[in-house]
Structure formats: structure tokens, C-alpha cells
């Protein structure tokens, strides 16, 4: 087994500890930024939903402003955003490199995407349910938590799955420009030295991470879908 592995991936064996380290860095970048992204994106998704025309707290100004900012941010390619944000990242995170330096751009790059995912999930809630809750004297906050969020759990978990998978991809891109993680590992150890097997090994780990996220997401969506 080991011999077979050595024969097809000769350059990976000595780098296994580094590969493991890179994997942990990728998981850390994904995990830490995901916490912020889910909280902020969810809040914006809710805000978009309730302020839109016909919403619970209809407010054209708030909706328009949010809508424009999100569209603007979404139209900047992540690789450009990384460089654009460097001065701001330095102020906020104290550094613009390594795992710490990658969190802020990952958040800025993914929040707009996730807030649209959240908005779409909440838009899938049957307006009749909102009306029913109102007829029962439910407060607006109650409707947000007890109807919108609760009823959209399956759709939200699908949106979160897509967002996390996207995020893993972006951490690799951030890694390629100095943030560490599997992207950096593949680029520095593999691409620059022309060790093809190292690139393949990094990709395999990324594929595994994405698969695990997808499977967990599917299970949650299925379990909560009634």
C-alpha cells in the first residue's frame, strides 16, 4: 500500500505533515469566516426580506441601499477584492497575510452571496403562513423567528451548503496569494516546483472537504423537510 502510494505520489510523502497543516488552516479559515458570514448574511437576508415591497417592515430606502451594496460587492471578482481590501484588512486584522489576514476578505467576499441565498430561502416561505401568523396576533419579531426562519430551515441549509462550498474554493484562492491553507500548499509546493502529485493531493483533500459539507447539508435538508 505504502509502496504503491510512494510510486504514484513520490513527492507527497515527505510533505504529509505540511499537507495536514494546510488542511487545518483551510478548515480554520473556512470555519472562522463561516461563523461571521452566516450571522451577518442571515441578518442581511432577513433585512432584505422584511424591507422589500409588501414585506413586514416595508422600507424602500433600506432595501434599495442594501440591494445596491450587495450587487456592487458581488460584481467584484474575489481575487481583485483580496487586493482592494489589503489596506482595510491591515487596519482590521492587523495583518493582510496568513490565516488571520484572510478572514476579513473572505467575509466581505461571501456575505453578499450568502445574504442573497438567505433572501431566496426566506422568499420561499408561503406568504399565507405570514398572514396566518399575523391573524393569530403574532408580533413581527415572532414572525421572523417562528415562521420565516423555522419554515425555511430546509432551504436555508441548502443555501448554507452552497455558501460553505463556495467559501472553501475562495480560501484556496486566498491561499494562493499568501493566506496559507491548501491553496497555498498546492501553489507553493506543487505549482512552483512542478510537483504535479502535490497539486493532486491538495485537490483530493479539497474534494473530500466539499463532499463532507455537501453530505451533511443534504442530511439536514432532508431531515427538516416535512
Amino acid at each position, binding site marked *: 500500500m505504502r509502496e504503491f502510494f510512494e510510486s504514484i505520489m513520490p513527492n507527497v510523502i515527505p510533505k504529509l505533515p505540511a499537507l495536514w497543516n494546510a488542511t487545518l488552516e483551510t478548515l480554520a479559515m473556512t470555519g472562522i469566516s463561516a461563523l461571521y458570514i452566516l450571522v451577518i448574511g442571515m441578518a442581511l437576508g432577513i433585512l432584505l426580506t422584511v424591507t422589500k415591497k409588501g414585506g413586514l417592515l416595508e422600507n424602500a430606502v433600506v432595501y434599495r441601499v442594501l440591494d445596491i451594496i450587495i450587487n456592487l460587492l458581488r460584481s467584484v471578482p474575489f481575487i481583485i477584492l483580496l487586493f482592494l481590501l489589503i489596506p482595510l484588512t491591515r487596519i482590521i486584522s492587523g495583518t493582510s497575510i496568513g490565516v488571520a489576514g484572510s478572514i476579513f476578505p473572505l467575509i466581505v467576499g461571501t456575505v453578499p452571496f450568502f445574504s442573497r441565498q438567505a433572501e431566496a430561502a426566506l422568499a420561499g416561505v*408561503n406568504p*399565507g*403562513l405570514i*398572514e*396566518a*401568523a*399575523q*391573524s*393569530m*396576533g*403574532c*408580533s413581527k419579531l415572532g414572525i421572523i423567528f*417562528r*415562521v420565516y426562519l*423555522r*419554515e425555511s*430551515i430546509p432551504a436555508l441549509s441548502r443555501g448554507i451548503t452552497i455558501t460553505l462550498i463556495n467559501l472553501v474554493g475562495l480560501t484556496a484562492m486566498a491561499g494562493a496569494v499568501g493566506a496559507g491553507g491548501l491553496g497555498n500548499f498546492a501553489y507553493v509546493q506543487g505549482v512552483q516546483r512542478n510537483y504535479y502529485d502535490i497539486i493532486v493531493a491538495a485537490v483530493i483533500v479539497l474534494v473530500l472537504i466539499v463532499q463532507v459539507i455537501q453530505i451533511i447539508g443534504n442530511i439536514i435538508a432532508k431531515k*427538516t423537510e*416535512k
Partner: protein
Amino acid sequence: MIRLEHITKTYVNAGKKFNAADDVSLEIKKGEIFGIIGFSGAGKSTLVRCINLLERPDSGRVFINDKDITALRGAELRRQRKKIGMIFQHFNLFASRTVLQNVIFPIRYNGLSAAERRKKALELLELVGIADKAGAYPSELSGGQKQRAAIARALASDPEILLCDEATSALDPQTTEAILKLLKSLNAKLGLTIVLITHQMNVVKEICDRTAVMENGRVVEQGDVFEIFANPQQPVTRSFVDTTSCLSGINTLIEEKSPLVQLKPGQKILRFKYLERSACEALVSTISRKFNIDLNIVFGSIEIIGDNPIGGLVVIADGNEDDIRAAVKYLCDINVGVEVILSA
């Protein structure tokens, strides 16, 4: 109990103004079942939503127990809404919650303990006849069971009023019948005032005490269900009443020159209509005996509404011209509407 005063609500759609409610005034008494009937777009949905202010009227006021609820906002309005249950055409049950959890939803924060809430919800499910479905999710229920669950949920906060928004329109005739029976029994058992809107005349006929007919945002006719059925004044009311009777079928037969209505000399086609509550005499035998004419019944439609027969007959009368005339006069005298549809 419920008093609507000059309710007006206008929508603007694609630059066009649309009067969903146009100066509507209605009074609904405590403990009655009041039906609002109209074709789609007549504004009945808007009107019923004005009662719990899911739609706020542009002008006009809504009184419940002589309290002007249009003056209420925020928490006060929410407290008032708890006293008004509502059920919907498409049930609007929370798909992520079991039937029991759906019924508990409106009373979740009302101060009862978890055990008391559960007990109350189970009692309500018992009342509507689906206690065995407490643990099921809405997707596992039939349409009738869903509406029963929705009714239990609407009753959870002990409302005095139940608003029904086309509550039977998505159900098959048998299930409609069963749900209407349930509503009627709740009305009797709990003294619940029920306001229902529908486009189905048979729903009104089946359970309502009084009714209002809506067209283009206005109430064109209202009153006792029997009066409305017996004496529809407006064309729209007449067309609704016709949907529940087969008497107008004679016109089709005549148009199609059916052999059934090929008259021999001396025959006439007559339509009798019961206009009064007392019309339960032996009409046909009386006039055939008294005036020596033969009556051949072509169509008959007699229903019991509020314990009174309503409807009429279409007959081919065969006899002496003068005798038939005398019979018609006799019928008019005892307040049966008679119409000569065709003479040979």
C-alpha cells in the same frame, strides 16, 4: 358584534385604480353565521381581512363589540386579533410543525404552562375530530384534516369570532359538507360568530343565517338567506341562486327544441316558485283537482333552507284555457310565483 361602517379600500394596479371595497357597511350579530358571497374579484377577501385589519381600510371604521378597532395599533391590535380566529382556503398550516405544534403556536406565550397548552390543544383536536393526528405533519393529512387542524389552531386563543376565507373552496363536495357541519356545530356549541366568504352558493345555503352579496366592491344585496334565495333582486344574486337550482334547465330544453317540451294544443309550460315560508301545501294535487287540469312535472328543485322549503317546479299544464288561467290566479293568490314560459 361586528359593525363595518363605510369601509373603502382602493388598490392601484398598473396605474389603474381598483375598488376592492367601496363604501361597505355591514352589521353581523353575535352568534350568527354570516356569509359574504361574490364572484372572484368582487372584493370579499379584502372585506373579510378588514375585520381583523390584515388589510387596513383607506377609510371607514370597524367596530367589534362597539370598540373601534381601526384605532388600535401594535400590541393592542395584536391582542384584539387573538380574539378573532381565521381559517384559509389553502389552510396555511406550518409545514415544519406537527398538527399539535400548529395548534399550540398561537398560545405559545400566553402564560399557560407547557402541559396546560398541550392539554388545551389536544382538547381542540378532539373537538374537531382529528385527535389521532396530533403527531402528524400537515403534509401527511388530507385536505379535510388540514382544514380541521387549521380550525383547531384558529380556536386556540378562545376567539369570539371565526373568519373563514374560502375555507371550503379547495375541498371536494363530501369534505366541504363535513367541514360545514363542523362549523355549524362549533357555532352552536361555542356560540362562535362565524363570517365566511365564498363563491359557492351552496355553502351559504347550507349553514348561513344571513348573507351579503358583493359585486365590484359593493354589497348589492343583503339579508336573511331565505329571503335572498326566494327573492333575489340583483342579477348577480339571481345568477348565484340559479347555480343551486335546475329550474333554469327548461330554457335550455326549449332552445334545443327537445321532444320533452313539444307542446300539444292547449298545453302550457309553467314555472312555479315558492316565495313564502308557508309553501308546503299539496299544490299540485290541489290545482289539478280544483281546476281539472293535468300537470306533468318536468323539473323540480325544492330545498330546505332554515327549515323552510324553497325552490319550485316546472310543469306542463294540460287543460282548458280558462281553467289554466284560473289556476294561475289561484296560485298567485296564495303567493306562489307563476310564470308562463311557453304556450302552444
